[in-house]
């Protein structure tokens, strides 16, 4: 295989070549380096790269390990020892992590090589990656559109073959939605399935790290490596970790898939709706039974989510005070002036908005009206899912009501951006697992093809099942084999 063809491979394929000694980890890393140099000026997915250290790791890689010698891109909110961890924020511009997040330590123990940090919405707050203080990542399928967010750098890198696979984080859809908009696979594990130690905290009761990959099998491989209990995260679940690859290939006869009727009414793009209808037919032909279900509190999820997420963010981001790390304002008059100006200079607009909103809903006199109410609604949303999962094995929906939207289209209106998470954030409130996988294409008026993502939600700790169902669909379609026409767009992108 010629080096130029290597970056298009997924994790499992690459690993097979390593084990047959047809390609070395060094050759794969060098080929990836060349590919990144070629496409990065157009997609701008990375915030930092460290190929020197990665090459040293590749030289001594043990290819018999589960991910031996495989380079993995890491969202810049996850600590990798010795590398920057900026969260795409000015306030952490010069920060370097001194230790590995547990997920990174586990990846390294499985033989993987973290070589670069990917762009994101600042502190993971956003659905388009436009809230990065550093750069705008573009959608590889159409450079005038967003890749989704907040893990937009990870999604775009995987979609553009500028990464073999990546880690992201999902607080309200931040793995699944960019996976959908960029045409890759993204999995949000059950809350507590994966350690949060070493992630820069945004909303502690909602977020999980998870894989963004080219195939469902690769998502299972990465999840195998990162899942499991951690003495450094008390919210981590102690349940043993099954082999998530084990059920792939099992048939769907007897599987019951629920279609939440509330998800079919909320302004879904007609081409997304068509893709869902075709998927329903496809799943039926694969032997699954489709069942109409109701999640009656769906319309309250976004309000509940944003009150809770902002409240937790306002508390978590209090640590950025210009004292122990990060940016500090010049010539402070006193300590309060130091705090106030450091945070004013260091945070971008969306982060400031959420700190204000979160501080307000937690403040004396308003706590009951907003935060406590949102937490009660969260209980109703959990019950909705519990009742649905009593009838079905998993829930099927689009991941996002629309395909990738143009850069700038929603960035001026926070509420519009929040509504982008409409099908994803209830899963975070309920703590259940979810996966987004390629389910077709929409065609714009200009004739550009944009990927459509389908979502499967599974009950807590049922990652194996949603992977099995997504895999069966993937193997019966060709969507995941398509690649964005990056070369063809080379000239037009110069005008952006």
């Amino acid at each position, binding site marked *: 295989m010629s080096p130029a063809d290597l970056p298009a491979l997924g994790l499992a394929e690459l690993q097979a070549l390593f084990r047959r000694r047809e390609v070395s980890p060094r050759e794969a890393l060098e080929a990836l380096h060349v590919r990144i140099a070629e496409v990065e000026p157009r997609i701008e997915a990375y915030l930092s790269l460290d190929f020197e250290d990665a090459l040293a790791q590749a030289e001594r890689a043990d290819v018999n390990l589960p991910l031996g010698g495989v380079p993995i891109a890491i969202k810049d909110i996850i600590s990798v020892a010795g590398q920057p961890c900026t969260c795409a924020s000015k306030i952490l511009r*010069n920060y*370097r992590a*001194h230790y590995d997040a547990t997920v990174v330590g586990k990846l390294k123990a499985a033989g993987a090589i973290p070589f670069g940090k990917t762009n994101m919405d600042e502190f993971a707050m956003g659905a388009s990656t436009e809230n990065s203080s550093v750069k705008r990542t573009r959608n590889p399928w159409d450079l005038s559109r967003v890749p989704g967010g907040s893990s937009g750098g990870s999604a775009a890198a995987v979609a553009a073959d500028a990464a073999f696979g990546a880690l992201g984080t999902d607080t309200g859809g931040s793995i699944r939605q960019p996976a959908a908009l960029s045409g890759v696979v993204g999995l949000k594990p*059950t*809350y*507590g399935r994966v350690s949060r130690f070493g992630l820069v905290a945004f909303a502690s*009761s909602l977020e999980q790290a998870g894989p963004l990959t080219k195939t469902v099998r690769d998502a299972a491989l990465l999840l195998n490596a990162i899942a499991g209990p951690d*003495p450094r995260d*008390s*919210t*981590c679940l*102690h349940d043993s970790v099954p082999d998530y690859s084990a059920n792939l290939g099992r048939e769907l006869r007897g599987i019951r898939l629920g279609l939440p009727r509330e998800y079919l009414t909320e302004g879904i793009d007609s081409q997304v709706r068509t893709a869902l209808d075709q998927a329903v037919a496809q799943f039926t032909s694969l032997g699954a039974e489709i069942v109409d279900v109701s999640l009656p*509190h769906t*319309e*309250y999820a976004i*309000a*509940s989510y944003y*009150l809770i997420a902002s409240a937790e963010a*306002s508390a978590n981001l*209090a640590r950025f*005070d210009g*004292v122990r*790390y*990060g940016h500090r304002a010049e010539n402070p*008059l*006193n*300590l309060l*002036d*130091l*705090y*106030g*100006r450091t*945070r*004013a200079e260091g*945070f971008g607009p969306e982060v*400031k*908005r959420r*700190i*204000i*909103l979160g*501080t*307000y809903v937690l*403040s004396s006199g*308003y706590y009951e009206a*907003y935060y406590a*109410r*949102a*937490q*009660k*609604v*969260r*209980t*109703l949303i*959990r019950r909705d899912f519990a009742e649905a999962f009593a009838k079905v094995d998993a829930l099927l929906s689009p991941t996002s009501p629309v395909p990738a939207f143009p850069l700038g289209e929603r960035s001026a209106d*926070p*509420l519009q951006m*929040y509504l982008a998470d409409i099908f994803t954030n209830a899963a975070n*409130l309920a*703590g259940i697992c979810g996966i987004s996988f390629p389910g077709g294409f929409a065609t714009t008026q200009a004739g550009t093809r944009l990927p459509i993502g389908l979502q499967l939600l599974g009950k*807590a700790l049922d990652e194996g099942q949603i992977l099995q169902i997504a895999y069966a669909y993937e193997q019966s379609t060709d969507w995941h084999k398509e690649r964005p026409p990056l070369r063809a767009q080379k000239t037009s992108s110069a005008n952006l």
Partner: protein
Amino acid sequence: MSETAELDVAHVAKLARLDLTEEETKLFQAQLGRVLEYAEKLRELDLSGVEETAHAIPVFNVFRPDEPQAWLTAEEALNNAPRQADGLFIVPKVVE
């Protein structure tokens, strides 16, 4: 009367130790006003008797052996600090 109108961004910014410009204050007042208006939706629900969910999948009694482990050195803990000296973080004077 909804509580929405009561959001005073300038006051909350003080609580949050976050200096805002006049334009930011005005902009956030309008934008967050719309977000809170949207959140008024939650009032449609009868929540009497419904318990709050703080964690979707709570785990209890999580213990680990209380044993010292290697962790950051003082030097490592300090070297991301904007100002430090003699093994300490330097801040403006807090006592006159």
